[in-house]
């Protein structure tokens, strides 16, 4: 057993993901990176930059342009000893692969009583806030989270991006790895090396607070943090929970947080109806019922197609909308 020295570096989220890929590929020759434009171009977000040059065309390669084919091909690779990591170019362009994801990737292990494991990762740049045109800004996490058999994780910062991707690649189960596009360029300190903690399944309290709990994940976390800061200036102490892992869901951390404040707001970019935010609200309402001083509020995308660039600010959960929801938590009764 070797202990790897852990180096710290300031990296953007995109760079942190790139490093996680690089380190996993270095460690295990079975790890392959594939998708559209992930080879010489390095991906449209440059997340796979340099991997083909470093590891060769057999390890990081472009496929024909067909997402169902990519996902299905990855299933075969995973069935036969490889650990494929797939990049879907954008959220909405993963939909052609939906049947492969739902009917095979999520079910193969169960179907074969664990005999066929699929250690594969599907990386999906998702959500909005980058002024992208139609089909480039969908928040598709609810489709995956509703599908039993998948793990669904999403980092909110470079450090988690690194460790979550390392543990996703190490997992014997398929993982949908959702990358908030608008955080690709956000920088942070990242501990590198053989680091898979925090891993899949653990939420974290990002900010302590006593008046109400904000529950967020992925791209909504920085907004929640900003709202908490703003609230502090207004004299209200908000706690912020970052889920990191949607499936499995860390009930213990979330419930403890909500019970400690008695009030909760769930924040997510996706359209709210029948979504991950609905699940969180329903769970918290059920499990923390007797601790709740007010109904759990949701600040989510509206139930509309994602807006064009000039109007996306209307759809995105904002500090203002979050604070208004907090205002609504029936303080007069307190």
């Amino acid at each position, binding site marked *: 057993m070797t202990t790897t020295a852990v180096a710290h570096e300031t990296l953007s989220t995109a760079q942190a993901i790139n490093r996680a890929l690089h380190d996993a590929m270095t460690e295990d020759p079975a790890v392959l990176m594939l998708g559209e434009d992930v080879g010489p171009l390095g991906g449209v977000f440059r997340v796979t930059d340099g991997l083909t040059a470093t590891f060769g065309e057999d390890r990081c390669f472009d*496929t024909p342009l067909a997402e169902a084919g990519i996902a*299905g091909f990855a299933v075969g*690779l995973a069935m036969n000893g490889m650990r494929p990591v797939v990049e879907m170019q954008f959220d909405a362009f993963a939909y052609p692969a939906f049947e492969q994801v739902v009917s095979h990737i999520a079910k193969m*292990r169960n179907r074969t009583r664990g005999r066929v494991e699929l250690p594969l990762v599907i990386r999906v740049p998702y959500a909005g806030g980058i002024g992208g045109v139609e089909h480039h800004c969908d928040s598709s996490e609810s489709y995956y989270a509703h599908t039993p058999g998948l793990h669904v994780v999403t980092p909110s910062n470079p450090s988690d991006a690194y460790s979550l991707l390392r543990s996703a690649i190490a997992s014997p189960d398929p993982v949908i790895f959702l990358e908030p596009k608008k955080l690709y360029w956000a920088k942070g300190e990242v501990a590198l090396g053989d680091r898979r903690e925090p891993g899949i399944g653990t939420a974290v309290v990002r900010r302590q607070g006593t008046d109400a709990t904000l529950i967020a994940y992925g791209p909504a976390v920085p907004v929640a943090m900003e709202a908490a800061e703003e609230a502090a200036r207004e004299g209200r102490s908000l706690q912020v929970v970052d889920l990191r892992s949607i499936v499995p869901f860390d009930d213990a951390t979330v419930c403890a947080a909500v019970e400690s404040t008695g009030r909760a707001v769930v924040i997510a970019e996706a359209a709210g109806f029948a979504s991950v935010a609905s699940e969180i609200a329903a769970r918290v309402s059920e499990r923390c019922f007797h601790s709740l001083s007010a109904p759990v509020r949701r600040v989510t995308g509206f139930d509309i197609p994602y807006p064009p660039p000039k109007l996306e600010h209307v759809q995105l959960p904002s500090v203002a909308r979050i604070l208004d929801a907090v205002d609504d938590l029936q303080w007069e009764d307190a």
Partner: protein
Amino acid sequence: MLLDPDGRPTAAGAARLPAGEELLRGLAGMITARRFNDQASALVRQGRLAVYPSSHGQEGCQVAAAQVLDDGDWLFPTYRDTAAAVARGVDPVEVLGLLKGDWHSGYDPYERRVAPLTTPLATQLPHAVGVAHAARLRGEGTVVLAMCGDGATSEGDFHEALNFAAVFRAPVVFFVQNNQYAISVPLARQTAAPTLAHKGVGYGIPGEQVDGNDLAALLDVLSGAVERARAGEGPQLVEGRTYRMQAHTNADDATRYRADGEVAAWVARDPLVRLETYLRTDGILDDARAAAFADAAEQVARRTRDGINRDVVPDPDDLFRYVYSEPTSQLVEQLALVHDELSRDESSRDESSRGEQSRAEAHR
């Protein structure tokens, strides 16, 4: 065609007919496959299988697909290709796992290198390409034979799989069993292509059509394709023209969409009869050997019958056991709920108070 429908070698057959022992092996396989098909259909009628899509009439394709492969190769079957899996040596009872309803799939795919029978049409084809590509990256000489039906060629996954295979030069033989129908839809409403073998052209994949009721020709064409794939010549496409002699499944009513006469014409082209006629005429098959084949088939049928008739008490815990390598805390909670329900069920069997009895009934 190497043997004509009456079992006489054609001109090509005279030159390329596989060795007698190969053909005998094939005949034995077909006899077993036919017996297995008919046994499984009987088990449906007896309520022991949920459903059975029989390959009765397609046994030539079923057996040839298995026979041309080495042990290290892979076979990717559809729901209809149970007989091919049996021919490759998978336990017949385990092959029927899906159709019995105990579990979604019955056998260990790695044991005989047979992927699970796949229901969503054409979706197994890209898997096959991935398996082949992984083997090739490691320098293994594996060939993957992937089966699908005529109807499945219309799915996008068929297209994407052939294209991936061609671009990556993956050693895959795509074997389309054209049995003329996709449930009720005849080939002419499925495609306007001259033949399904022509579908290779657009991918740069060599395509060949073969009489799917002529085992000799199937062995010849498929083993050629397998050898080319193994030699690094890239993927191959083979269309076997055959016929689904029975309904799609027991739940189907084929009289709604095809005439008896059409079926009769194909029954006259039965692949078993054709090969047996030739082998007997040529003196390769004698009565003793034929009896031995029938016997072996009967044993498979008996094993199938016995195994399927054996009641397995399915374990609800299994539903939670295999979803992930480690159950999530959500699944742990939910399984506890199931256990709780089951124990209430148990106790209600004794007490029967407060309507518990009827709850238990509803639960079952």
